[in-house]
């Protein structure tokens, strides 16, 4: 509507003016489309967690099957040749797959060389994800993540 009015009465009237307006419009549409494509491209660039292969983590949760309430998490840390990794600090964090739920926290203590144990409280039934935030003796930090599906109601 504005274009039509300007064509009739505006200072920059005439077909050339209209072409300029249209080309500007298409340029703007192009920019918006490009922005959308960049967003799509970004979708493939998700940040990955630190998954250093030099440290291996095995874990066990008891009791099995996992139920609402406190659970014992046993962790074994070894290096790539199977040697126990000692003197590490391991913080355990439990999150539900649904946002807005209270996370659970725990700290694992070293019982023997490379063998750690901690407690975590599953407050609700459902799918949980455990994060192990590990600080090695040399100060390196690692994160490991394991899923604990279908924690059952009592």
């Amino acid at each position, binding site marked *: 509507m504005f274009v039509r*009015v300007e064509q009739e009465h505006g200072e920059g009237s005439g077909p050339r003016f209209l072409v300029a307006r249209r080309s500007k419009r298409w340029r703007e549409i192009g920019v918006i489309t490009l922005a959308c494509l960049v967003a799509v491209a970004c979708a493939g660039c998700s940040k990955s967690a630190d998954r250093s292969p030099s440290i291996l983590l095995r874990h066990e949760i008891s009791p099995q099957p996992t139920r609402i309430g406190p659970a014992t998490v046993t962790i074994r840390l070894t290096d790539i040749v199977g040697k126990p990794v000692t003197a590490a600090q391991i913080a355990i*964090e439990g999150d539900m797959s649904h*946002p*807005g739920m*209270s*996370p659970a926290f725990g700290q694992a203590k070293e019982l023997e060389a490379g063998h750690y144990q901690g407690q975590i409280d599953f407050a609700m*039934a459902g*799918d949980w994800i455990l994060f192990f935030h590990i600080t090695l003796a040399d100060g390196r930090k690692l994160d490991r993540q394991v899923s604990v599906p279908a924690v059952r*109601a009592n």
Partner: protein
Amino acid sequence: MGRFLLWRHSRTLLQIPLLLVSIAMIVQGLVGPSLAPKNLATVLTWVHFRGALVLFILCAGNFFCLACPFMAVRNAARRLLRPRFNWPVWLRNKWMAVALFVLILFTYELFDLWSSPWWTAWLIVAYFLAVLLVDGVFKHASFCKFVCPIGQFNFIASTLSPLEVQVRDGDVCVTCKTKDCIRGTRGLSRTVMSSPARAGQTSVAYKGLSELVVIQRGCELALFQPRKVGNMDCTFCLDCVHACPHDNIGILSRVPAAELMVDLLRSGIGYFSRRKDLATLAIVFSFGALLNALGMVSPVYALENWLGKLLHVSHEAPVLGLIFAFLLVVEPVMLLSFAAWLTRTIGGSRRAILPTAMRYSYALVPLGFGMWLAHYGFHFLTGLLTFIPVTQSALSDLGIRILGAPRWTLTGLPVRFVQPLEFGFLILGLAGSLLVAYRLAEEDSAEHPMMAFAPWAAVCLLIWASSIWLMLQPMEMRATLMSG
């Protein structure tokens, strides 16, 4: 507040923060942490947005539509592309929106949208694209009125709101000649006004000439204020407030749910009692509330596994489809038909069964809203502070540490404080539904209102008891329903 809302750019000012938040949610949903509780897209969408929405509707009105970020983008796009077509006549109803509403509920359960930041981000992107596509092609607010599932949710829920955009004095409208509230205010465009040849001349001098354009929209949803009844289809956009030359329209208080008790000719809508699509929306809204909450409690997993074994299927879609069909079609049809038949038989109603069921279906809306409030209010209040560590984490990922390290221990109110509120919402919903049903029964059967009311009271009590049972079930949040 009133002065701010009267300001012409108030809507834009409310939309901009939500638009920025939406962009942040899309970006974090696509490139941020894949775990839902640590991503803004999922936390803000499924915890805060839904909860704030229903609480705002309960306490005030349809303020989300007022601040809708999708409309901000649409308005900006309409400066580039002017729609040419009118929305097709055969689609001028709520059927498509109801179908999309059901589809969203279904995909929410099937794909566990709440657990996927990536899919949540794409849902928001899809919403923006759909708005641009529909309102880029079709004139007026076609998307809001005929397509938007969130909008339909807001429209039907806001029939229970205490605020409404209303005419202050009906007599002023009787003498009004221009009807700007629906037609819009016309005047000279800025370009013409700034032209040296026109400088100093008023728009009045040009009335009737081709350069008069709409400088302030009237209602894009075809609600003519003097004949508008209630909040149905009102987006609180305030276009009519700004367009009225007599300052005769405002946001006024009213009795919540009162509009469900009357069957007047409503501008842009018609009669509630004759709108099958609206009655269906009311039914889907009410029973959908139960269905949506059912997806979060332990018994549904046992039910799905049992159905899967019975039907020899391992995929969730057909089993979920069966549950949806039962709870959104079979159960409402059976309950409402039986209640309508009883109303006719023992209550002395002269209506046929279908119109009776349609008319009384609106009485279930308060109950449904009570359930939505209990469900979404629970997540909102128990997860109230979770956006803080997620925002801290998002900024930290960008190298901005002004908010400090994420405090993941921040959550919200303890469940023991929230649970009484949930029951309060359900009791409020039951009281509202019983009141509406009784008023409808009085209108329906002046001689035996109690007899006409009794079947609907029984339906309301049954739904309410189901809601209470649901709330007492242990919650179970699983992203893999049929894995055993």
